[in-house]
């Protein structure tokens, strides 16, 4: 049985910082939000998605054609969501908010997220399950309550959906062990988020994969 890989909170914050550094380089709009007493914090990203799957382009771009932008293209996000929609019906656009927090009890990162229409109506858990990528749907539906449920955000105290962290080690450990065999440093957050993100509509551009390699070259 392989020894499980855990990360401490400081390590978590360091990986998040590296992740955000690359995010800023490619305009991926992740940011760090410290908690009120600044002892801890979380990573946050907001993006908008048209319900049929196309990703919204930035303010000013026409939404008529609803051209599907490739997922890995970076785009600027307006901070005020009232400014965003001009032509697409408000009910069709969903605002996703993703938070990456550290779980002290599990010693792994956890993905919190919420989704709402622009008029403020939140998506239901059922909507969320239905929105899960086809790739993962079968597995999810075998045990949906073990996977995505609703919980109170530890820092904000608001209801968020959560991707359960209890099994994170099981799928992270083989990947990390494999990389360690060739002395390759891996950004835990990048790897983990690339795996769990697509389940809930969050796709990381490929450049994050290269960023990790470059980081380790700079370190050594």
């Amino acid at each position, binding site marked *: 049985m*392989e020894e499980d890989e855990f990360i401490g909170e400081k390590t978590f914050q360091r990986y998040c910082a590296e992740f955000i550094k690359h995010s800023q380089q490619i305009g991926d709009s992740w940011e760090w939000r410290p908690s009120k007493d600044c002892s801890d914090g979380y990573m946050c990203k907001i993006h908008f998605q048209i319900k049929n799957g196309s990703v919204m382009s930035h303010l000013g771009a026409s939404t008529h054609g609803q051209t599907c932008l490739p*997922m*890995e293209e970076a785009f600027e996000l307006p901070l005020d969501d009232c400014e965003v929609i001009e032509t697409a019906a408000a009910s069709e656009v969903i605002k996703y908010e993703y938070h990456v927090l550290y779980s002290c009890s599990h010693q792994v990162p956890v993905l919190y997220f919420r989704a709402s229409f622009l008029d403020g109506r939140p998506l239901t858990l059922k909507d969320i399950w239905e929105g899960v*990528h*086809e*790739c*993962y749907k*079968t*597995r*999810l539906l*075998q*045990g949906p309550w*073990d*996977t*995505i449920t609703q919980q109170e955000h530890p820092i904000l105290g608001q209801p968020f959906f959560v*991707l*359960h*962290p*209890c*099994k*994170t*080690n*099981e*799928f992270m*450990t*083989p*990947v*990390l*062990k*494999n*990389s360690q065999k*060739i002395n*390759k440093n*891996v*950004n835990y957050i*990048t*790897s983990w988020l*690339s*795996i*769990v*993100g*697509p389940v809930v509509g969050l*796709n*990381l551009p*490929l450049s*994050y*994969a*290269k960023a*990790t*390699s470059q980081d380790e070259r700079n370190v050594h």
Partner: protein
Amino acid sequence: MTSREHQVSLCNCVPLLRRLLCDAPWRKARPLHALSRYFRSRVFPSKMAEEPQSVLQLPPSSAAGGEGLTDVSPETTTPEPPSSAAVSPGTEEPAGDTKKKIDILLKAVGDTPIMKTKKWAVERTRTIQGLIDFIKKFLKLVASEQLFIYVNQSFAPSPDQECFGSDGKLVLHYCKSQAWG
């Protein structure tokens, strides 16, 4: 060399030079083995070309996206490229590159079964999801098992990501897991 030897070597070179200079530009580049008669020792073509290539032509799939992979070679013993090689979304290939398929090398991680055939030629338009479905079927995974694919041994590309490669090659690690969340 003596002047006599000079003359001999020049005599050998002249016909070669004449051909190179007179041939149409697009014919100048000759495979090495075609020029072998101008050299003392025979040069053989690349060993790879001599290996019989079994090609499994699977019917192209419209929906599942998990088929349409062509087997490049059976059990291979060629040295594997370092997995830290940079991967690119295909934008690094020269413009006009007509090679439509990417050569993918699949490597198992952890306790995941090793595929008997590791090298596959895949259409560029195949998505990562298509590959995942294909490997799952190939390995006969059950519904409760999830398969993950990684580039650079650590990053899972999005399922909608189309296949890409540096120089038309891509190394992917795959890992099965029953865990989620």
